């Protein structure tokens, strides 16, 4: 009985911690900044692919080093996802603040682009993209220095844009025809890629007839570290103070000399980086492929909405309770508990498959949001619209 209880708690918490680490980045981007980032899942996917790349680099190194690749992968995943997030914020999202529906569509588009990018990126494609960026942005930068830039702006773009596309396309076609497969071969392809956890993460810690998987324990540890890190960062550092100030009152912060644009970019990059870390963590449990992100994005939004805006504590409680609920329903444990009361037991047995459990969890969440529309910790104070 004791080991059964322990198993239930552990499994519930471990499902919850996967949800939590996936939702952490979103809790910042969506919860604090209010940006609906549908590309959050794809940032996780990039983190997972970074893990794959780091793993392959470490495979070429002497054997004992390979066992520790995961730590480097975590850091690399954070950096890569944060960099992509930064580009995304500067390139797309900053033009769309305060226009949530456009943000929704734009980030969805970005998510599709990122998915297709990992499917088809090859040496040729990356050379083409680099050539294009160099020609277009370089050209624009040169012309921007002319005093009459504003007057000739549209005309310049009309000339430079097709020109750079044409040149980069020509370069990549030429390379593809000269060097063939070495240039055109996709790095990852449409297939899932294989991320193998290091030996020490593959087993488990046995307790009675139950085994605590090390990979789950590891994910819980990462989650806790990230949580503590974010808490300390937001509460104790200057940048954290600025982020909190800007999210509470942008105009006032700007008046007081806080560079709000920089704070936005920084916050978004931080949230994206956390998505990358989550991507690295989930690669220990699940598949790594172009669709990986899509499998998680619904759950992450669910967690943040249930948790409530701008409160990390809400996200934590929401993730853990959704995790525990879906475990208890899905594994049929609730049906066993209610076995003496026949109709209730039958009811829970009906929902005791993984896909039906998901239906029930969704139903519960909708009911909950009817009662507490603001989530577990609704935002209070003067800036709440009523």
């Amino acid at each position, binding site marked *: 009985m004791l080991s059964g209880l322990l198993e239930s708690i552990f499994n519930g918490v471990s499902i919850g911690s996967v949800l939590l680490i996936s939702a952490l980045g979103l809790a910042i981007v969506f919860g604090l900044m209010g940006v*609906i980032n549908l590309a959050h899942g794809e940032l996780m996917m990039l983190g997972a692919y970074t893990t794959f790349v780091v793993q392959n680099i470490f495979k070429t190194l002497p054997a004992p080093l390979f066992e520790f690749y995961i730590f480097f992968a975590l850091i690399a995943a954070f950096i890569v996802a944060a960099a992509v997030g930064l580009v995304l914020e500067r390139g797309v999202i900053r033009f769309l603040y305060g226009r949530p529906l456009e943000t*929704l569509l734009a980030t969805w588009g970005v998510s599709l682009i990122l998915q297709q990018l990992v499917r088809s990126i090859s040496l040729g494609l990356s050379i083409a993209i680099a050539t294009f960026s160099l020609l277009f942005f370089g050209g624009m930068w040169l012309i921007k220095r002319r005093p009459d830039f504003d007057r000739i702006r549209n005309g310049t773009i009309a000339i430079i844009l097709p020109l750079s596309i044409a040149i980069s396309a020509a370069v990549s076609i030429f390379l593809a025809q000269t060097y063939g497969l070495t240039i055109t071969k996709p790095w990852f392809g449409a297939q899932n890629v*294989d991320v193998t956890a290091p030996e020490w993460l*593959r*087993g488990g810690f046995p307790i009675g007839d139950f085994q605590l998987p090390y990979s789950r324990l590891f994910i819980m540890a990462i989650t806790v570290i990230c949580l503590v890190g974010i808490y300390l960062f937001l509460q104790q550092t200057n940048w954290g103070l600025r982020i909190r100030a800007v999210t509470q009152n942008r105009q006032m912060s700007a008046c007081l000399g806080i560079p709000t644009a920089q704070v936005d970019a920084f916050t978004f990059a931080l949230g994206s980086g956390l998505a990358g870390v989550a991507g690295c963590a*989930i690669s220990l449990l699940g598949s790594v492929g172009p669709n990986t992100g899509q*499998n998680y994005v619904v759950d992450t939004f669910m967690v943040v*909405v249930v948790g409530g805006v701008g409160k990390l504590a809400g996200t934590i409680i929401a993730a853990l309770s959704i995790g525990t609920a879906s475990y208890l329903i899905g594994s049929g444990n609730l049906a066993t508990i209610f076995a003496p009361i026949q109709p209730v037991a039958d009811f829970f047995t009906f929902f005791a498959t993984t896909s039906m459990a998901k239906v029930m969890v969704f139903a519960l969440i909708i009911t909950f949001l009817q009662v507490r529309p603001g989530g577990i910790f609704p935002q209070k104070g003067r800036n709440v*619209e009523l």
Partner: protein
Amino acid sequence: MANQFGRRRFILLGGAGLAGTVILNACTKPGSSPTKTPTTAPATSASPSDAPVAANGNTVKVGILHSLSGTMAISEKSVVDAEQLAISEINAKGGVLGKQIEAIVEDGASDWDKFAEKAKKLIDQDKVATVFGCWTSASRKAVLPVFEGKKHMLWYPVQYEGQECSQNVFYTGAAPNQQIEPAVDWLLKNKGKEFFLVGSDYVFPRTANTIIKAQLKAKGGKAVGEDYLPLGNNEVTPIIAKIKKALPNGGVIFNTLNGDSNVAFFKQMQSAGLKADKYPVMSVSVAEEEVKAIGVEYLKGHYASWNYFQTVNTPANKTFVDSFKKKYGAERVVNDPMEAAYIMVYMWKMAVEKAKTFELEAVRKAANGLTFDAPEGKVTMENNHHLSKFVRIGEIGADGMFKIVSESKEAIKPIPWNQYVTETKGFACDWSDPAKGGKYKAKA
């Protein structure tokens, strides 16, 4: 903008975000239409096709209709490779009836409506001689009315749940009695009587598990539990807990999961301490390509049931594997659906040559009874438009290849209407006899 992001707005946005993501996901997931209507034969049979075939000049057009983008691209891309290998081989040897084959590749984009739309386009605009295509049962069900309505011809290369027998489709993958049922028999004999069934939540696993449960009941085995995972779901903790509860001392797990969930399932099985010696998993959707993507570390010692493995030892297979690697790179692997796709192009060619015309009705008649020396062995197109095939069970080895542990001595004849399922028991299919057709009551 003083109150930039308040409660009401938050709910609105949150709702929009959730709805958006749900819709987004629903759009890209396969198998969302669990239609189970068995297709009965179209009433008309011998009337000439109303879609004339274009075989002008020196080329003949054929359609290739698979998902090149979206979720299913993972599996379907390599099937397209195998089809194009067969086409280029045939062209190199002079083509079909002196004409070079020109393949028109259309992308179904993992979207079943798009499959139907593209099938119409191939038939009406391109006037193709035949179409090779589809992977998921849902996509096949979506294009079926198109092919039946236009009396055209589809070749379908993937193992499926059976319970279908269309005059307008040739099925070169396994019917359940050529893959699932022999696997269950082998497990009962060698691995144990208690089964736990795990599958993705769509039409193939659910039908397959109905068949397995009926078969276990008939042969003295027992299904101690079953569970279904939504496609793409990676959280298998509840399933593993259930398996441990239902089979505390080990037992057989029959796995019909498809796609990404397989990775999560095998990774988490291992870390929960369910090892291949006590809990052998028999998969019917894990082949050479998937082994590469899941990671061999997690799969060693588990089993899969197919008609073909890359390790099959026949001269035809050696040629097939060599020419595939030569065309697409040495690190590529071949698998069962790719072999079935390769077979079907050749089968079509042989049928055309036997009929001496591209005319659909004649080709359809000529295809019945053709024998081809396939990589898996000699296979025959039976009168029910399914192939007789060899059945093999492989154990996954450390090199990611399958060690064949059991092999049928001869090709097993296909039974599309399942004999373990009450509704279809006693039914059979025979297109060589107009009186019988797609579903008739056979003598018991």
